[in-house]
């Protein structure tokens, strides 16, 4: 955050789109990201993500999301179907080509992409263009950590424990889900709620983009990552400062790093703050550091999309 942005919050809408009284954990980074996003998009429809809907979707009695939740029980695809139907009806009612929803904004957990590989590809085939906000609270890393613990000798080892190759793969996929690398988007970016103005700017660009846009948002999660709940924003800043999650954007195939880090801190400082990594074998640390260094160097050198997303 530079000094000029200090007073920017004053310019944002005072009207709360994302109402208080939800049951998400104290200091939830995902709730913070969704709230900042709702500020950036003021009159646009936003749908809650389905996976943690049971947590963030349930609110105190008499309170509900300020925006209609269109179809929360269905996946991304059904949401787009609904948007198309709404548009058709609006066009029929007004006898013009008026669109009720110009661009759909869909927020979902990254877990959906890990569980349902074709969810995004199916959605991209539709006519309706959308801005996809992918909240990444790294729920899938839990599985990796569980596998990294050696099994007691009585138990039969039917799963291969996570080793250097698997960890390297996780870090390589961290910066962008593989399905996004293979698809065509007009605008791709990564962001984090610890840099709120960066996030707001990127969402506005995503809305303005002609076709589909995708923003990957790292949302620190105090419960899952096991750190004190006041440190949410600090954790996001550390992830950026260590190069674990570099903030960049790809506009029309040109890569720009939006948050330049002059000297990367060792990734150990970031991982050591989180108690979820206490089972991670220490010999894997150089592997993680090496992968992060490689990606950051590639990112700094690359000017075009195809140079990093092979």
């Amino acid at each position, binding site marked *: 955050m530079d000094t000029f942005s*200090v*007073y920017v919050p004053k310019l*944002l809408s005072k009207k709360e789109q994302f109402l*208080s009284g939800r049951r998400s954990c*104290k200091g*939830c*980074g995902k709730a913070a990201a969704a709230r900042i996003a709702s*500020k950036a998009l003021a009159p646009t429809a936003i749908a809650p993500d389905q996976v943690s809907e049971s947590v963030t979707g349930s609110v105190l009695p008499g309170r509900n999301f300020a925006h209609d939740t269109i179809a929360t029980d269905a996946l991304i695809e059904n949401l787009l179907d609904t948007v198309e139907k709404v548009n058709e009806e609006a066009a029929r009612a007004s006898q013009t080509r008026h669109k009720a929803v110009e661009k759909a904004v869909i927020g979902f957990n990254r877990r959906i992409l890990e569980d349902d590989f074709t969810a995004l590809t199916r959605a991209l085939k539709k006519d309706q263009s959308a801005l996809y906000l992918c909240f990444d609270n790294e729920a899938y890393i839990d599985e990796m950590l569980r596998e990294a613990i050696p099994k007691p000798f009585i138990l039969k080892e039917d799963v291969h424990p996570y080793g250097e190759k698997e960890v390297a793969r996780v870090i390589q996929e961290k910066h962008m889900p593989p399905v996004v690398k293979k698809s065509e988007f007009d605008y791709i970016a990564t962001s984090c709620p610890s840099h709120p103005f960066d996030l707001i700017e990127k969402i506005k660009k995503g809305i303005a983009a002609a076709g589909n846009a995708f923003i990957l948002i790292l949302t620190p999660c105090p419960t899952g990552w096991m750190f*004190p709940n*006041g440190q949410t924003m600090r954790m996001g800043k550390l992830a950026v400062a260590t190069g674990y999650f570099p903030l960049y954007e790809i506009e029309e195939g040109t890569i720009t790093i939006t948050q330049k880090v002059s000297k990367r801190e060792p990734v150990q400082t970031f991982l050591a703050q989180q108690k979820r990594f206490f089972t991670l074998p220490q010999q894997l640390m150089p592997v993680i550091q090496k992968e992060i260094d490689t990606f950051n160097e590639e990112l700094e050198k690359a000017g075009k999309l195809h140079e990093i997303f092979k």
Partner: protein
Amino acid sequence: MKKDDIISFGSTIPIATRFDTNEDWRFERPVWNQEKCIQCGVCFLSCPDGAIHENDEGYYEADLQYCKGCGVCIQQCWTGCITLEPTVERPPWLIK
């Protein structure tokens, strides 16, 4: 890793809560020192629960019905004018 560290995980979510307020989520409440505040609104933007609102004089304050006492606003404030004031006693098994 200390034994205390492992137990402290439990402090994030209460085991049972009331459904008309978020009061029982918190052990501390944020208190604003208006002399130091520059009215920038960074705390307002960073609150994950949308519990901070602007009052008539342009200063910010927390809606104590919805504040969960997480401390994110305290970390984010530039001038350090927000402090945490204990409201209820923390149970001994929940370490900060």
